[in-house]
């Protein structure tokens, strides 16, 4: 089946089985690397992308459910030379070890910041709860999010 899919502001026509989880469409059909396969069970968050502005597990989001909702992956936030403020904060804090979880972390955190630009520490921790990091980079991830949360909207642009 073919589907029209809006990913990172671009519309794509993809040909895949309707049940295919978005993760495999983004990686396999569109060549994106941001969303990662971690568990396929919605338990680790490595595959997190934004769907209609909300952080979702792309590994459990069948293509057929996407509809007209916009998909955003970490590639859609910025590139190596055009990082958005949150990506830049992760770079400034050197908030990665192996980094496999980080694209998912950024996408989940960005969804929070989009909705609530100045979350409290408790709100950040609770919001990030679904995403796992095994290297133990949590303190840096929290610092990176805090860095952006403390900056008034637009000031860092």
């Amino acid at each position: 089946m073919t589907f029209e899919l809006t990913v990172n502001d671009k519309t794509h026509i993809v040909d895949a089985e309707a049940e295919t989880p978005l993760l495999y469409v983004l990686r396999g059909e569109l060549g994106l690397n941001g969303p990662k396969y971690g568990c396929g069970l919605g338990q680790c968050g490595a595959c997190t992308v934004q769907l209609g502005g909300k952080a979702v597990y792309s590994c459990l989001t069948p293509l057929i459910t996407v509809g007209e909702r916009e998909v955003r992956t970490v590639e859609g936030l910025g590139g190596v030379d055009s990082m958005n403020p949150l990506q830049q904060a992760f770079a400034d804090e050197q908030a990665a070890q192996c980094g496999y979880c980080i694209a998912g972390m950024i996408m989940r955190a960005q969804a929070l910041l989009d909705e609530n630009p100045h979350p409290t520490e408790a709100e950040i921790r609770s919001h990030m709860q679904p995403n796992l990091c095994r290297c133990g980079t949590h303190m840096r991830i929290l610092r990176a999010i805090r860095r952006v949360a403390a900056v008034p909207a637009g000031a860092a642009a």
Partner: protein
Amino acid sequence: MNAPVLDRRKVLSGGALVVAFAMTSRLLGDAVGGGEGGAGPKVVRPDLEGSLKTDPWLDAWIRIDAEGQATVCSGKAELGQGIRTALLQVVAEELDMPPAAITFITADTGRTPDEGLTAGSHSMQDSGTALANAGANVRMLLIGAAAKRLGIPVRELDTTGDGHIAARDGRRVSYGEAARALSLHVEAVADAPRRSPQSYRTMNRDFRRVDIPAKLTGGEAYVQDMRLPGMVHARVVRGPSYGTRLTAPDIAAARKMPGVLRIIQNGQFLAIVARKEWQAIQAMRVAQTSDYVKTGPDLPGEQGPRRLQSLASREIIVEQSDDGPKASTRTFKGSFSRPWYSHGSIGPSCAVAHLHGGELTIWSHSQGVFDMHRATAELVGLAPDKVRVIHTPSAGCYGHNGADDATAEAGLIAMQLPGVPVRLQWMREQEFGWEPCGCGMVTQIEASIGPDNKIAHWKYEVWSNSHNNRAVGAGGYAVAQEIVPGFPMQVPAPIPMPEGDGDRNANPLYVFNNMDIRYHFVPEMPMRVSALRSLGAHLNIFTMEAALDELAKAGGVDPLAFRLAHMQDERARAVMLRATDAFGWSKRLRGDGRRGCGMAFARYKNRGAYCAIALEIEIERETGAITIHRVNAAVDAGQPANPNGIRNQIEGGIIQSLSWAIHEDMTYDTSKRTGFDWGTYPILRFDQVPGSIDVDIVESAGLPFLGAGEAAQGPTSAALANAIADAAGVRLCDMPLTPAKVKAAIGNAG
């Protein structure tokens, strides 16, 4: 080798071997190649440092072209620990050129020196030291060439940091020009002048990691991201865990699934190859709808890790000392344990393999690509020079996880599909079920203090399987016992001291009287096991530091003062003091039933980085739940290459160790592992990470590099248990220290 030291008490009867490794270990201890076994490269120049011992040719490490661009090779791999950046800083510093002018190639059996495993916190020590000295050699040669060209003495020349050699009279020679007159196909000398720490331009700076930008923006950063033209996707079909076999996988049904290209079957080994990844997964699920039977050894049963004590073992004397009779006033006795742990990589293991023109190339995130290319060659029946393994980063592995198995299996599958690149990724449950776990372990301690509050007797025993079952031949892979004809399982062996495996850090750096320390090496493995970050050091440090706290308490001495009274190593004392000063140890709140503090220290392997931890916790007495308020760490990793990288490793080590200590436990029933997802194998999440972690680096300028990747694991779990004892007045000995165990120790009414 000395004659075996026979113990007069003859602990083991009937055929048990009693072997002392002391002499051999001194020799092997200085080996390079990761220090964790494997068929590491041979030492050819023992007078040189680091991996130059095994590959002294400068052009194996560094080449400089006519434009002054350098190509540098290292046999160590980026595992997420930031080693690529640190090594780049080291070589750039000693070459005295900008890192940006260096093309850096790592861990590729076709291109880089064989540096054995990237493991054991050896990378800075092996490769960092080699690159530093190779860089110094090359810089020396470049200056020499420039001196010749300008016709002035070497002493009138110096490098400028931007790829030039400048004379006092202002004349400059570029590295490219100098290199043109030079052959780097020469062996290193031992005394090439190193740059002095005072003039460092690149080293000891918080240089930003070169691999991070791609990881933040969705660049191709991992082996999982590789997309070769015509690449197909494979999945293996297996029972729920190692030691099981599917009785009737539905191959016919799988074959009919959309996109399926091939079903690979060899003995019990079964793999699906499909055009698209999701199709491969779907077909794998169909094939996997089958009963299974247990084929492997009996799992540990209700005894848990203590099962190891009832299996046959070989006794190894780790250390014995006789300081004459000493009076004992107080004695502490205890037995400690940790369960089997999963490495818990966030990304299940993956490899891409391509058979092309009779040569097999595999992109792998194995820690041991050099062993892999030999062992995989044996497995698939090719000559070793026809197999090339290129390290490509993946999710952190923290030791020997499924990476090697997935690599070997990708190789097997690719052999059936000449010309077609194959990408194999394990599923989450396969990683949990089939990877080698970190070893369950047990220790026993009986130690006393005398009237002077000094340790008078220290009797220590540890039971463990081998922590090193990395494949050095085909038989080391799980798949080798599934295919026909198969390869017999590799025989497990302990890693000798001073690195040690189950006995790693069982020998105290502290000065104790009358020590008797033994390692009961258990060859039979109730669970498939191999290396997990810090190996046996984790439980040995946990035990030792618990005993120290208990003895300090018994003697009425502050835990810090008690440790210092037994420590002569100045660097060890310095990190203990630095961590506790930053923590405010002397003014700390005293255990009040709910809140409390703990500290612990270790020098990893007694020859790696020094690390001390102090932390403050709070226990909810009604539930046993633990909140970690703040952690202070101090670390001495020798000359820092990248301080931020060291901090990152220590912070990560602390959090991972807390996760092990509080939550982790690979569960099992009578036929299989039962930890298969993040619900059944929970790890620390954001709501439980400490309020703060502060890491201080004690700088040892100019001293040898000491890897920091495993320094925090032992001290952190130990400090946590000590803090629980301080806070709640209960000594917990069996990890994980779950809320239920804390609550049970406090008691219902407590």
